[in-house]
């Protein structure tokens, strides 16, 4: 009888030692995954910041260049409209000499309009001779977006999600820690050793399941 008890305790001791070792290895594995996920969140943050820099660089350059073009258009419009208005006044010139002067003024205004016309992209001129600045800015943004990432939000959201995942992984390690406590109690208790092993195993299973679900994105 004593021999059986001794054998049983020896078996339990070995089993608990193996279980503790397995749980420890699993905890190490989960820690490794948490660390890898944390690293990935850092990478996503970096990508997001790079996108933010690109977006602001693009926005700033587009505004500077777009409004520079718009300035040239403004000068063009001023001289073009002035020339048109002078042309309307030509018919009411009081004398031939006055008509020649007015004609010279008109020609000068239209020449200056032409000089400015080459300083901005004419394709953004609307049919009514107004300028589609917003279309130009939008097109410049879209062109830049084809070459580089201009949407930091998605990367930041990904980084936050990964960071949360990594923290949850640490929570699962905590649950595994509970199983270690329960396994350790097996050696200290005279009775109910099997219950402690069972509870410890349940905690270990829960911790591992939690880690797997977190890894799969189910939690």
């Amino acid at each position, binding site marked *: 009888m004593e021999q059986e008890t001794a054998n049983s305790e020896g078996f339990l001791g070995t089993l608990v030692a193996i279980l503790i070792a397995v749980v420890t290895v699993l905890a190490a594995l989960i820690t490794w995954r948490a660390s890898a996920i*944390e690293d990935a969140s850092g990478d996503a943050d970096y990508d997001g*910041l790079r996108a933010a820099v690109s977006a*602001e660089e693009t926005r700033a350059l587009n505004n500077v260049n777009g409004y520079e073009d718009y300035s040239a258009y403004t000068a063009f419009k001023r001289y073009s409209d002035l020339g048109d208005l002078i042309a309307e006044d030509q018919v009411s010139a009081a004398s031939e000499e006055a008509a020649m002067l007015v004609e010279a003024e008109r020609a000068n205004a239209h020449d200056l309009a032409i000089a400015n016309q080459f300083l901005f992209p004419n394709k953004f001129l609307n049919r009514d001779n107004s300028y589609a600045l917003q279309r130009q800015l939008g097109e410049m943004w879209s062109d830049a977006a084809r070459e580089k990432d201009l949407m930091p939000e998605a990367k930041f959201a990904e980084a936050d999600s990964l960071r949360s995942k990594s923290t949850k992984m640490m929570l699962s390690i905590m649950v595994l820690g509970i199983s270690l406590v329960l396994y350790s109690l097996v050696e200290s208790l005279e009775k109910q050793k099997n219950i402690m092993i069972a509870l410890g195993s349940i905690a270990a299973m829960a911790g591992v399941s939690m880690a797997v679900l977190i890894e799969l994105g189910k939690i």
Partner: protein
Amino acid sequence: MDTHESTSKGFSPEKFNRTIAVLIAVVTLITAIIAYLQSDAAARDDRANRDTKRYSIEAFGRKVSGDARVNYDYNTAYQNWYELDLLADSARNRGDDEAAARYEALRDNTVQLSPLLQPPYFDAAAGGEPDIARYEADTYIVEITELRENFTAASVVKDAWDNKANTYIVHITLMAVSLFLFGLSTTISGQQTRWIFAGVGSVIAMVAVIWAVVLYVQPVNDLRDTGAIRSYAQAEGLAHQEKWEEAIELYDQAIAAAPDYANAYLGRADAVGSLGDIEAAVTDFEAAISRGDKSASTAGNLAWNYYLLGRFDDAIRLNQIALQSAPDELWIRYDLGLAQLASGDVDAARATYDLGMQSAARQVADAKAAGSEPPSYLWWGLDDAALQLDNLMQTLDGADGAPSAEQIAQPDAVYEAAAELFTRIKNQSVSLEYTGEPSTGEISAVITPLKFAEPVYDDQGEVQAYNEGEAFDFGANEISILFDYEGMQDGQNVLFKVYIDGEEDPSWRLIAPWELGKTGSAEKSLSLSYSDNFVLSPGDYVVEMYINEHLAQRGGFVINPEG
């Protein structure tokens, strides 16, 4: 011996080891919990750190974009409108109605080019200037203020979580030491040593746990979650437009949402001060400082408000504190001198002003040596110092002012010193600006007090007479400065500076070598009279004449308001 034996008999190594094993398991579990908290704190730290960078990048980009846009709107679109309006007026003044109508039509077409030329920023029918401050506030100032405040708030959050994460690492380290001691206690043969190791391990674990709990319950306040930043940014936008009452309402909201928001107190201090409530400004500046604003600028501004209230000792103390962190801030140095002067400590004031002038000279020399230029605030600091001395003298002469004449100790000595310091600062400023060297020597020439007059022309455009006066009606398009001189030499550097309502308008500077001989009478014209439209704008004008970088004479006149 007996005692030892009995103890040995009561001690069961097996039971001890089992207890230690449980303790190790419990400490491991607690370590895992602390590791989780550390991971969480580190994640929040990382996130806040990322946010700081993001806000900073966005604020920079929006500022450049906003500037580019406003530059177009004002310097191109409005400038066009203004030019065409002027051309229309000119044409009408010349009697060329056709051209005037043409320019008016063009001017009206310009309105569609920019939102700045449309309501609520501009009333094209009424003319005048567009409300550029409102446009700037709406276009980017509120937005970048919010981003900058978010940046500051995120930095605070980052520091707090960084501190927590690092402290949790200390706890984990202590737990590791504890585990080590527990482990050691199971392998050592000496019973007493076993207990010592186990006991010390337990104490260390307990300390770490209590410390971790205390750290965990300490909150990390995030200003971004309170809504205060939004109210503050809008208040700043209104303050930019000098809509002080509306701004104060929003500062109040920001403070109600975040009672420790130092910048909101600072903004409200400026706003209430601008409305003339100096006592309230002092209260808010003090509140900002007590909530962590340690900047020299805030201390200097509080000192200035103490000065206005006649609390000279407090002003001196605060200026000295501000100078400890910003010894080269000229305006603070001169404010200190001004407070010392008003308190009657003339010798200390002179010494402080001397230090200020030496500091200005050194900064200019350093900039020149480095191949760069001194910052504009240096010239502003010198101008402001002279302006405040002038105000002090005017108060002592009987004008209304803060502090009042009754609050100023030893008024005669103060006035005398103020007049001397005023001239020295003026000389120093012009000398540093034009020669890069401090002012030295004196001038021998004598200039009579400046007189001001409207010239009267005959049909041939020759001046027939001067209508002298100290005040001129709105519409004056030319004012002549009249004076007699003695002891001048041709080739001397002569500079005229014009101040309108206390601020220099550099576009009026007249600088030329003297060519009018040793003695005589002279006339200098302030005018753009070749224009069909130009008139001098209403205000108090002060003209200063410098000879070889020395203030030779100074006088003023008034252009009355329209109507």
